[in-house]
């Protein structure tokens, strides 16, 4: 069988990259990858302060990391926080952006502007303000308040991809086509709009997941030890044992990558489905 992807692997212009181009790419990769590689190596190094490469290797720090009493509970809390944030974001963002793209188009520039605000407020200020305002039970310092805060903080990451996806499909005409065929607004959303903006929803979810899974400031200031998440445990261990902290970081990276791969895989499956169906038939 022919491999349809093969032509794409050749350089588009057919020109070999120059030496200085390779240098820039190498610098970029070193800048991005060196800290990660170092963390991986440090998590399995016995002693690494007198030599260029570690003096020996061990998996001891991983065993100690997995044996930490909070290991499982903090991972679970981080997953709960990430998934809950994604769900709340989707429920709030998708219908809102849809209405703005179809019926309230004049509102779109305002929403675009609003979605920059979370970047404009220092996280510490946001956290302290929320703690003061919602200082009433059952909200005060609760995981619910944390989810609310993290939804606001990560909202731009969901908004952008969803908004771009809606822009690309001419949502208004598709909506009207659906309505003229007898579909109500929920049927239009569930059967036409959402399936067609799924790639945007998935990439938004991915961005939100990786942001929230590694979130420290809001969690630390709003709930602290009451709802300990994985980043809190990690920061705690940077003061106790650097090698174990490195092992935790590796676990964190790995989970983030696994989730990314999973989401991208689900997304690409959705996109490729049409072509595959046809080939199969």
């Amino acid at each position, binding site marked *: 069988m022919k491999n349809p992807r093969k032509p794409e692997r050749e350089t588009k212009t057919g020109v070999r990259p120059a030496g200085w181009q390779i240098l820039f790419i190498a610098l970029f990769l070193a800048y991005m990858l060196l800290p990660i590689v170092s963390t991986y190596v440090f998590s399995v190094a016995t002693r690494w302060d007198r030599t260029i490469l570690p003096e020996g290797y061990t998996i001891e720090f991983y065993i100690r990391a997995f044996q930490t009493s909070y290991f499982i509970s903090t991972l679970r809390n981080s997953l709960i926080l990430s998934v809950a944030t994604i769900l709340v974001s989707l429920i709030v963002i998708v219908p809102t952006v849809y209405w703005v793209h179809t019926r309230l188009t004049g509102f779109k520039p305002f929403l675009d502007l609003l979605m920059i605000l979370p970047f404009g407020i220092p996280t510490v200020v946001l956290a302290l303000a929320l703690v003061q305002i919602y200082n009433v039970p059952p909200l005060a310092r609760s995981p619910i308040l944390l989810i609310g805060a993290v939804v606001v903080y990560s909202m731009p990451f969901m908004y952008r991809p969803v908004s771009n996806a809606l822009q690309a*499909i*001419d949502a208004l*005409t*598709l909506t*009207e*086509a*659906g*309505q*003229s*065929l*007898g*579909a*109500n607004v929920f*049927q239009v959303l569930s*059967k*036409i709009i959402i*399936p*067609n903006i799924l790639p945007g929803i998935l990439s938004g979810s991915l961005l939100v997941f990786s942001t929230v899974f590694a979130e420290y400031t809001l969690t630390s200031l709003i709930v602290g030890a009451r709802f300990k998440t994985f980043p809190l445990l990690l920061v705690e261990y940077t003061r106790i044992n650097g090698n174990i902290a490195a092992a935790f970081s590796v676990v964190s990276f790995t989970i983030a990558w696994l989730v990314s791969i999973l989401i991208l895989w689900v997304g690409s499956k959705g996109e490729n489905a*049409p072509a595959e*169906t*046809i080939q199969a*038939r």
Partner: protein
Amino acid sequence: MAYLDLKNVNKSFSGVVAVHDFNLEIDKGSLVSFLGPSGCGKTTTLRMIAGFGHLDQGTIELDGADITAVPPNQRDIGMVFQAYALFPNMTVRGNVAFGLLMKKMPKREIDQRVDNVLEMVRLQDAAKRFPHQLSGGQQQRIALARALAVQPRVLLLDEPLSALDAEVRVVLRGEIRRIQSELAITTVYVTHDQEEALSISDKVVVMNKGVIEQIGIPEEIYRAPKTHFVATFIGTANQFLGKVSGIDTVICNHFNLLVDDMKGFNDGHRVVVLVRPEIIHVEPDQPQHDGWNIIPGEVETITFHGAVTRLGVNLHGQRVAADITVANTKPISLNQKIWLLFPPDACQVMDVDEG
């Protein structure tokens, strides 16, 4: 009684009038086109029939029932969009079946119906394809099939051929007319293409600036335009300014024109006389034809259009277009002195102030 009845429909967008006092009765099973330049209100009116956009004033009745306030998904009115608007996530079959699924029709009936309409648009082999795998013309056929599958009470087409190649346009408009006649489905067709409107419609509604200029069968619209706008928008028309003299003469600067119908204009009234290029005969030698308009001129341009050749003739400083065919005219060359002749009933008299 009319099947689809628009009464006194008015619509404006932030103070700008889009549709003004629109009254139209459409018979069951007929194809009516809304024809006009962009911004004339034709699409706005169509969208109001579909239920997209509220009326500021007036009512829309369908089969005797007021549907003005009925939401679009309950009107049972099908629509075909300029941009096809096929659902990209569904196959052709999925698209065509969508409306039937919304009606909760049993699966076997849906399959049967989908096969029928796909056969009608001659695309039964494309059922398993996705919209992006089809050409523009094929996509629009599927959009038509999708709208027809639910057997709507009215079919609306919003510039359905504007995005297609000239050749596909001509074929597909014939197909639309064929299917529309076969099903006898009441259809409203919006277009800015006069040839399209004239060739497929039972009735044409010419619109300009939100107002109906004229409603009539295609021949009427072309041969007996009621307003200056209709006369100049549909086809090409030569215009001669002049003053009414008596019951059958208009005095222009350098010649007089005999007209058949003065339409009640009085002596001395300033009018414009419109004459279509294809009705003008061209003779190299001075002709004898009592009772006709015979005016000498000089050929300034010759443009070959295929079926006809258009001459630009200088009549005392005014450029006049006259169409000739190879079959019925002697050879004409540039700068040749010729005579134009046309009968009085070829002259349409209009008020100067109109338009």
